[in-house]
């Protein structure tokens, strides 16, 4: 009887320990930032072996990948109006479509709830659902069986006659954007599939662009020469993405093969080069998935501060400023890099801008890095509040390709000078005449009073005048 409570305690401790352990374990395995539930839509479960390296790599980074067939009746992206998955990978289907659970409307609804979609297509099977979705996004997909070829940058080791394994380079490093796909510049990426075109729109970004001499033609037609190619050159894209306004990402790759084990391990050789090299597909496809599933390019605002510049005791984030005050604005930005937050760096050719607006911006000035901590950078700038009173807003509207959108807005009131804040009259030289006028009037009044009180009448003179 006396032991009972003790053992009870012991079991409770074990239970607690177990629970803590569980927490700890789940924390260590670090579920990805934007959830780890991945739905991989693959018709034949056996095909997963083709993409096993890619999928295992995803699992290794904390994603919980579930393979499902689009034919499965219970397959759904939502349950009770909430999404059941955080990310979806669509492998090209063997049949004509993905079924009723993955219509374009449902995929868009999924992205509206913040879900990310990675669409892999192959020229022989682009289902109408994907075409419809692409049309909605502003991506132009070629007709069925149009493949991209390049007679200058093809792989000579694999099928050298068809030239359909294009060796593309990673996108060039740009000074103005954070391109998460630039990686090692010498890398060769093997691509076998269809290219597509992009419409005008800020939400669409190219990830992998076709070489200058590439073109797309109908592989099922027996033209002896490409009389009317569908698209050609750098206007044709191999992989593109759309980042919606809610930062959900849809990536469309023209080749499912490039994600396969075969291409990961392939040794390739450019025509004219002497040695064959391993492709960088594994790294590149990891970059594509990592970006699409929110492991990269997520920018977060930690804090925003604004205060009067020259007064150390002034309150932080006041509701009100006066016109012509000197104000300082600071913003702390972090960027997510696979498993942790790191300081966000604005590219050298770009500018993080602060706007001070009332209807229209009165200021749009660059913010410069003021300090860096282990996981954020503080950007700051100072300026003089404009000579216009009203309700203004500090606004940082930083929308750039490849990174999540930063749009922060904080309203403050800008008041006029109070009556005792104007320059005093004696500091204005033009007022001296008027001040002197007042002084002269006062002195004259005092003198007049003294004369009125104490002056003896000027009798003698008056008397003399009269006697004369």
């Amino acid at each position: 009887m006396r032991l009972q409570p003790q053992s009870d305690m012991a079991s409770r401790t074990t239970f607690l320990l177990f629970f803590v352990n569980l927490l700890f374990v789940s924390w260590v395995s670090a579920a990805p930032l934007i959830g780890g539930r991945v739905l991989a839509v693959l018709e034949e479960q056996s095909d997963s072996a083709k993409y096993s390296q890619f999928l295992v790599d995803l699992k290794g980074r904390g994603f919980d990948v579930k393979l499902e067939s689009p034919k499965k009746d219970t397959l759904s992206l939502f349950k009770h109006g909430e999404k059941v998955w955080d990310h979806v990978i669509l492998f090209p289907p063997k049949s004509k479509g993905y079924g009723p659970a993955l219509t374009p409307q449902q995929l868009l609804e999924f992205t509206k709830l913040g879900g990310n979609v990675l669409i892999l297509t192959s020229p022989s099977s682009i289902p109408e659902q994907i075409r419809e979705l692409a049309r909605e996004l502003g991506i132009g997909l070629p007709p069925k069986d149009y493949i991209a070829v390049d007679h200058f940058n093809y792989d000579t080791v694999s099928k050298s006659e068809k030239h359909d394994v294009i060796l593309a380079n990673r996108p060039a490093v740009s000074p103005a954007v954070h391109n998460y796909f630039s990686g090692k510049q010498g890398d060769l990426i093997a691509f076998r599939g269809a290219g597509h075109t992009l419409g005008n729109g800020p939400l669409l970004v190219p990830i992998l662009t076709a070489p200058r001499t590439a073109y797309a033609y109908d592989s099922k037609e027996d033209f002896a020469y490409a009389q009317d190619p569908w698209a050609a050159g750098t206007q044709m894209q191999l992989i593109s993405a759309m980042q919606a306004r809610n930062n959900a990402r849809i990536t469309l790759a023209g080749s499912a093969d490039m994600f396969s084990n075969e291409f990961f391990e392939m040794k390739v050789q450019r025509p004219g080069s002497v040695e064959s090299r391993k492709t960088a597909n594994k790294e590149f496809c990891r970059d594509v998935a990592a970006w699409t599933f929110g492991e990269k390019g997520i920018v977060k605002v930690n804090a925003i501060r604004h205060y009067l510049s020259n007064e150390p005791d002034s309150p932080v984030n006041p509701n009100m400023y006066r016109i012509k005050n000197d104000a300082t604005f600071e913003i702390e930005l972090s960027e997510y890099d696979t498993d942790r937050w790191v300081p966000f760096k604005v590219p050298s050719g770009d500018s993080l801008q602060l706007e001070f607006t009332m209807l229209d911006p009165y200021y749009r000035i660059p913010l410069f890095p003021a300090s860096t901590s282990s996981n954020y950078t503080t950007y700051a700038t100072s300026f003089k509040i404009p000579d216009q009173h009203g309700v203004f807003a500090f606004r940082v509207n930083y929308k750039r390709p490849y990174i999540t959108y930063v749009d922060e807005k904080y309203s403050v009131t800008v008041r006029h000078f109070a009556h005792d804040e104007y320059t005093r009259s004696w500091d204005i030289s033009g007022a001296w005449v008027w001040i002197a006028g007042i002084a002269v009037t006062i002195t004259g009044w005092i003198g007049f009073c003294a004369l009125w009180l104490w002056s003896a009448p000027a009798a003698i003179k008056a008397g003399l005048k009269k006697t004369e």
Partner: protein
Amino acid sequence: MRSTISSGMSSWTLFALAFSSLAAAASGAWTFEDAQAVIAAKGGKAEAYKFSPTKPIKGAINLGPKDILKVSLTVKEDSKVGRPHQAFLLVQEPESKVEAFFPLNVKELSGKAKVDLSHKDLPAFLLTAPSLSLSLVLGSFGQSTASIATIGNVEPLLDPAAKALLEKQKQKDIGEGTVVYRAKDEIRHVFRADPQSPPKIITLVFLLSVLAGLGGLFVVWFPILGGNLSHLPKALKAAPISHPLFFASLLSLEGIFFMYYTQWNLFQTLAGMAVVGPVALFSGSRALREVRARRERESARRCEEK
């Protein structure tokens, strides 16, 4: 091998094509010869420019609104005539590297290829550029090396009216009005000009003239009109408290105004007035009574003297 063969046999054709080209030229290269670019103007005489893979056309070709640039050449796979799968004329705007492609019409047996280029073929973006560079791409399946050769430069000639129209079209084409996510132009608020004071020297001149007015007033009072303070001892004798008190209260009223001007607020000023005002009222009535009495006495004395 022509496209008249049914599409069911396409893969076979492709294979045959690939095989034949493979067999024909194991390590050949696509090239061309007898190449010329002719500007055919309506009614005018044609101007021909010859070029070869290694020798592009020197100088720029002017392409007028009604001209047609006819490029013709013979495609060769090494020394044999052939037809490559890809035979494009690339027209590039050198600055932005934006490029358009024009497939050449190639005869299979003779390898004769030609393409026409006129203003209406070119998109507005390229047409409005000052200069365009032309290149020729030849490439096909199989092992023959593909080639890309520079042909030369074309300068489209536009009349101003057409140019304005094309500029508009170009803006439309490159997505006028669509947002581009990048840094925007910097804006800095321009403050209204501060109020200006006149030059100090002018201020000082007027300041001196105001002060001179005070001096003039005192000069008129004392030496000319004979103002004096000689009754002060009399007044102090007659009303020793009210006179100094009245004068002091007058001075302190002015002092209160001065404090209000420099640092006091209205309430402090009113409090000061409340203290000094009654003093001035009572002492003033006494002092002025004394002054009247003195004046009456004085005029009475004067009357007696007369």
